[in-house]
């Protein structure tokens, strides 16, 4: 069914009896052409685009829990394309363009809101680096602006300009950056995929892979064997666990990232902001909560929770930047498991197993990548060749010395 304001009014007047299930709960069929493992944002987007843009049929998405229970349901909802390196920026800009038309495309209001993102500058070296980055963004067709201190002050007068340990000297701004209602992205893609015949199978965990002669035949699951011509794995956070079923080791570690939301407050912060002298970034949701985060906890973890030191570190960054939030209260802390890759950039590639494809290593950049990741993974699955904007996301880049290391931290995942 099509959603619209008129429909909402009509239903309101008739007791909302007409709303249909947003997705079916089909039983798994014995086999499919393409099976996507992972009913998070990337998996659902992949299925959606496979059906809608690449004319694929007989597609299933297997989710071990509930749809959207991946990191799409536990992130800080930021979208942006303010990357530096050639391997990344075209991809994230492609993603941002997909965000810009997403709601009309899948007829679901995911509240894509381009209220702008600023990265604050505190040193001359940072300004030099952000100037390099901003130019790279524009060369890639994205938007970028360099703001001076007065422009930042006009935008956010309550930041600590006058009594700060690390004075604010300006900011790199991308006006097209912003936030999206994260759960709605999963639901919108799920609804769009389901309505195009994709089987979305919840509570179905992959327990093994059936491989013969170097080719994938299907998946052992908690709901029985499911045959597949092609299998696409999009389970960031659990990538190593799932790919181990195929005997593969990955250039990835799993780490816990905590995120935070405050009690609801009247509008205070319009856009998205990242602190350049501490580990803190923040935006305010439409409901009024300050949504913020910082660093990963820093040790391998599959427990979707963290510890106090990072919580305190994030709060310290927040108070150093915005001393007016001292009396706002932290309402909820949650954790997600990140696929931290060896250079901080993702992987969308074939594997040594014929018919088995991989999408992961998103670190904490996965949410903003959701549309492009789905599109590019669908492209790879359908056509067996990488999408032009995702060509660099190969497994062998580490062997060949072609890392995409935005932070310049080297082969230490917890530093990216």
């Amino acid at each position, binding site marked *: 069914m099509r959603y619209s304001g008129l429909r909402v009014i009509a239903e309101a007047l008739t007791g909302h009896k007409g709303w249909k299930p947003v997705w079916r709960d089909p039983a798994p069929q014995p086999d499919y052409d393409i099976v996507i493992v992972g009913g998070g944002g990337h998996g659902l987007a992949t299925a959606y685009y496979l059906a809608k843009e690449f004319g694929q049929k007989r597609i299933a998405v297997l989710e071990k829990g509930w749809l959207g229970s991946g990191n799409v349901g536990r992130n800080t909802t930021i979208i942006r394309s303010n990357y530096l390196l050639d391997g990344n920026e075209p991809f994230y800009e492609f993603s941002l363009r997909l965000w810009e038309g997403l709601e009309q495309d899948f007829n679901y209001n995911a509240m894509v809101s381009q209220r702008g993102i600023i990265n604050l500058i505190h040193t001359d070296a940072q300004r030099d680096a952000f100037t390099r980055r901003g130019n790279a963004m524009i060369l890639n067709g994205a938007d970028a602006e360099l703001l001076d201190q007065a422009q930042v002050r006009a935008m956010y007068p309550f930041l600590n300009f006058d009594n700060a340990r690390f004075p604010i000297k300006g900011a790199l701004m991308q006006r097209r950056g912003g936030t999206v209602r994260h759960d709605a992205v999963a639901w919108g893609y799920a609804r769009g995929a389901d309505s195009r015949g994709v089987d979305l199978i919840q509570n179905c965990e992959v327990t093994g892979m059936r491989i013969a002669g170097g080719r994938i035949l299907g998946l052992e699951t908690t709901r029985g064997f499911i045959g597949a011509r092609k299998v696409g794995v999009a389970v960031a956070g*659990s990538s*190593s*666990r799932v790919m181990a079923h195929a005997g593969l*080791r*990955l*250039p*990835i*570690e*799993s780490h816990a990232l905590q995120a935070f939301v405050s009690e609801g407050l009247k509008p205070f912060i319009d856009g998205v902001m990242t602190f350049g002298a501490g580990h803190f970034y923040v935006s305010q949701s439409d409901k009024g909560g300050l949504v913020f985060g910082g660093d990963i906890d*820093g*040790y*391998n*973890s*599959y*427990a979707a929770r963290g*510890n106090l*030191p990072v919580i305190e570190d994030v709060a310290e960054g927040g108070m150093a930047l915005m001393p007016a939030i001292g009396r706002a209260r932290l309402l909820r802390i949650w954790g997600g498991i990140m696929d931290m890759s*060896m250079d901080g950039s993702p992987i969308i590639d074939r594997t040594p197993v014929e018919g088995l494809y991989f999408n992961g290593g998103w670190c904490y950049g996965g949410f903003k990548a959701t549309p492009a990741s789905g599109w590019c993974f669908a492209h790879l699955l359908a056509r067996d060749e990488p999408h032009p904007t995702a060509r660099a996301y190969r497994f062998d880049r*580490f*062997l060949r010395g072609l890392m995409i290391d935005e932070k310049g931290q080297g*082969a*230490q*995942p*917890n530093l990216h």
Partner: protein
Amino acid sequence: MIIPHPLLGPRDAQEFVYLGDASLMNRPDGMTAGIEAFHDWLYQRDNPAGIHRELWYHEQGDRSWLVVTRNTLTHEILGAELARDVARAMGRTK
């Protein structure tokens, strides 16, 4: 988390800096091993969901590098040894 330091007893993990999988101790010999071997050693991980041996550095303590055995599903720490002792036990004596 609390790390049971073999010399100093229980210490808050906040005093430590984390590196990663203890397999990083097995560095290939740069005079004999090639790019492939170094690549597999430096970039590839088991990343287990469960028992994990990993390297922690007591930066705000006695500067010992430790090999900590920890469950990545529960964060339960099962033991800690001085990395130097482990390395020497692996034959790194001369």
